[in-house]
């Protein structure tokens, strides 16, 4: 496998940054931590916005980080085809920056939720889901207080028409039900694509389900989006 270097962007309050590097290393993808003020390294072959609580979730989760200068660099790189993945707080940064559609806001429960969920693969024809089959059910952890996917109804229909929904919350049998929706997300959406297939965000944590010594490795397939 070719060695490529993925930049995992650290903001003050990021806390899944090292997990992402470790998980990428596990599948043979070289990754390094990049402090946001240092700018995006020229040789970056991919970008991860990791989970955490950047800027203490002030104003809205991801709102501050999304307006930091490095995000403009990531936007340019994404426009050139560099793969970009946002996980949890990184997903909030993705949507707050407009890299991906919709918004992730307060859970229906109004509580922080830390649990395992089932996800149905909605579109297996993307770099992030090519390791799975369409309709396959995978299990990943979630850990968020603001993960409810919100978007205008007509925009959601557009996303669905364009096949830009990556994952939906479902039960163990793959049924997309209200009971299986942990946070009240519209149409159970857990992850979406940006304008191009190479840009994606999701609230569940693939990097927390990627090391065989710890447990299931269902998340590895998402990270394979960075493998060449």
């Amino acid at each position, binding site marked *: 496998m070719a060695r490529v270097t993925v930049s995992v962007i650290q903001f003050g309050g990021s806390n899944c940054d090292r997990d992402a590097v470790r998980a990428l290393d596990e599948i043979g993808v070289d990754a390094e931590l990049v402090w946001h003020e240092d700018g995006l390294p020229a040789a970056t072959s991919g970008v991860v916005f990791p989970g955490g609580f950047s800027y203490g979730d002030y104003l809205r989760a991801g709102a501050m980080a999304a307006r930091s200068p490095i995000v403009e660099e990531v936007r340019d790189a994404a426009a050139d085809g560099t793969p970009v993945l946002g996980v949890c707080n990184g997903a909030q940064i993705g949507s707050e920056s407009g890299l991906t559609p919709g918004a992730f806001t307060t859970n229906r429960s109004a509580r922080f939720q830390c649990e395992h969920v089932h996800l149905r693969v909605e579109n297996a024809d993307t770099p992030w889901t090519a390791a799975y089959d369409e309709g396959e059910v995978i299990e990943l952890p979630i850990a968020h207080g603001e993960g409810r996917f919100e978007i205008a109804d007509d925009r959601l229909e557009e996303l669905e028409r364009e096949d830009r929904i990556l994952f939906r919350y479902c039960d163990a049998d793959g049924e997309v039900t209200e009971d299986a929706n942990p946070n*009240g997300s519209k149409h159970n959406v857990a992850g979406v694509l940006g304008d191009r297939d190479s840009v994606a965000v999701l609230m569940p944590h693939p990097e927390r389900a990627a090391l065989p010594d710890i447990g299931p490795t269902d998340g590895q397939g998402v990270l394979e989006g960075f493998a060449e």
Partner: protein
Amino acid sequence: MTAYTATVTVRLKRGVLDPEAETTQRQLERLGFDLADLRSADQFEIDVDATDADAAAERADEMAERLLANPTIHDYTVEVAERDA
């Protein structure tokens, strides 16, 4: 230049679920209050110096567009008043 305070109020769009407001409403009802509905909003008071009120409002409007509100889920209003500098 005149001293103004621009007040930006950011609200969830109608129809967007607000679990914190619902929880607050339930708690008020538990305290015995009778209310039909409750909406919460964020308010920002921004002191600016500008040539006139329109210029102050325009600057605050841009702040709301760029950061204070998220257009996917929020509506916002801007009000400008002169302040004692």
